[in-house]
């Protein structure tokens, strides 16, 4: 099983993945999660014991297709409503720290 061989050497890199997910963790959190998730990953890996070569993946539990809406404009939210939920605003926009491109 090629998959098993590969996964046995791979270990979750909590610090890297947390950054990818934009979660700034403390060192202690990283240590704790690393230990816990190593166990979880070792456990969930066992699905690769199965022979899945000729199995189609299921991404939807129901066999539905082609659900469309017609191209018609419907009223949305008012700018007041939208801004009232915003943590910070500027000129009816969502204010964020300066974006550097």
């Amino acid at each position, binding site marked *: 099983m090629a998959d098993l061989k590969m996964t046995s050497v791979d270990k979750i890199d909590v610090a890297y993945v947390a950054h990818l997910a934009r979660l700034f963790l403390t060192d202690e959190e990283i240590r704790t999660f690393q230990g816990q998730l190593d166990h979880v990953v070792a456990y969930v890996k066992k699905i690769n014991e199965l022979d899945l070569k000729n199995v189609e993946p299921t991404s939807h539990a129901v066999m539905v297709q082609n659900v469309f*809406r017609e191209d018609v404009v419907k009223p949305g*939210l008012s700018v007041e409503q*939208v801004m009232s939920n915003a943590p910070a605003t500027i000129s009816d926009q969502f204010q964020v720290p*300066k974006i550097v491109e």
Partner: protein
Amino acid sequence: MKYLTTIGLEVHVQLRTQSKMFCGCSSEFGAEPNTHVCPVCLGYPGAMPVMNREAVRKTIITGLMIGSKINEFSKFDRKSYFYPDMPKNYQISQYDKPLCVGGSVDIDVDGGIKRVAVTRIHLEEDVGKNMHFQNTSGVDFNRAGIPLMEIVSEPEISSPEEAFAYLLALKQILLYAGVSDCNLEEGNVRCDVNCSVRQEGQNEFGTKTEIKNLNTFKGVLNALKYEVVRQVETLESGGNICQETRRWDVDTGVTIAMRSKEYAHDYRYFPEPDLVPVVTTREQIEELQSNLPELPRYRRERFVKEYGIPEYDAAVLTADMSVAGYFEQAAKLSSNPKAISNWIMTEMLRLLSEKELDIRTVMITPSALAGLVKLTDDKVINSNSAKEVFAVLFDKGGDPNQIVKEKGLIQVSDSGAIEKFIEQAIADNPKSVADYLSGKEVAAKHILGQVMKLSRGKANPQLVGAILEEKLKVEKQKKNG
């Protein structure tokens, strides 16, 4: 050392729809910030996307126009990355099952045709717009969720000029297909370009850079010109090209490396569980195929063949689908398509642009234009009068024959009447006659002008010229005799 350039383009085209890709918010341009938003396009908790039928249809039409294979099974995927203009911090896009695969766009290169292969066309949602203030930024989500079609070319473009030609050809196709307004000022077409250079004789591609978010075709041309030179100079001076994302600074005319977004390329695509697959049957594809407009290139070639007009005329006329349609309607009613073409290319296009009008709604009908051409060809009116009639037709419409009658513009080809005008002109302009007789041949032109004036423009100019020549010959003999 000679270098070869390799360019690939990703063109993002805003589709012409009333509403957004996954919600009923208006896709209208230029509204006040955050006035075309709802829980779906703001990524509110619990909101769910539903596909816009028209956006899917228009993408498939585009694919058919360029000869793509339409995937019978297509699906949407989530593409994850964090950015303030992203309402969900994932973009709904298409990864491994785009709507269209393959196809090509023909471009004109050095008098020949080059076929640029297209890899795929997929559909996705646009992001919001960041605005920059003094010490902070703001985000407007009106644009978030507007349907975007991404057309990805193969890296087969070998110069900035070819890239430019590709964009022009693509735009023409999109306009013909009616899938996008291609309004560059409104950001309807935005390009990411990949570019690399390599020494002639080297097989593998050089390291490429990507220039993102170019929103004019000239921008693409200039950015690529700069980038090619930069890469060649870097290599020539012994440097290396880094694989990086750059941006084009219009003001300074240079490309600048963007602050590298760490981990930016781990997009974690997976199938969008909130949407269901798009399955297009062969019958649906055939139905769309049978209603496709003719490709601009085919039309152009056909105009040359069917109507015998020059290649240049055909190119000008087919640049705009409605102009081409107008020409064809008029040409079919006329035995002189070249004259029809001349009218459209000169007077018509000039007046349309002066008065900011659309050829689809002009007063002068194709059959009126054909009628006007016939009146000229039959020498019923002369070219001066024809211009006058055209102006009337353009402003008010109507029947050219009627206008000619009403205005009394029928050409005078009666030689007796013309002789009288000439005799009077000779009598009235002794100085010009004297000048002519003393060898100043141009003086004859002045006399001819006087004749036309006396006839109020209606005299047949060829006839006037011939008779006048005779008369002046007689005068000359008199003088010499």
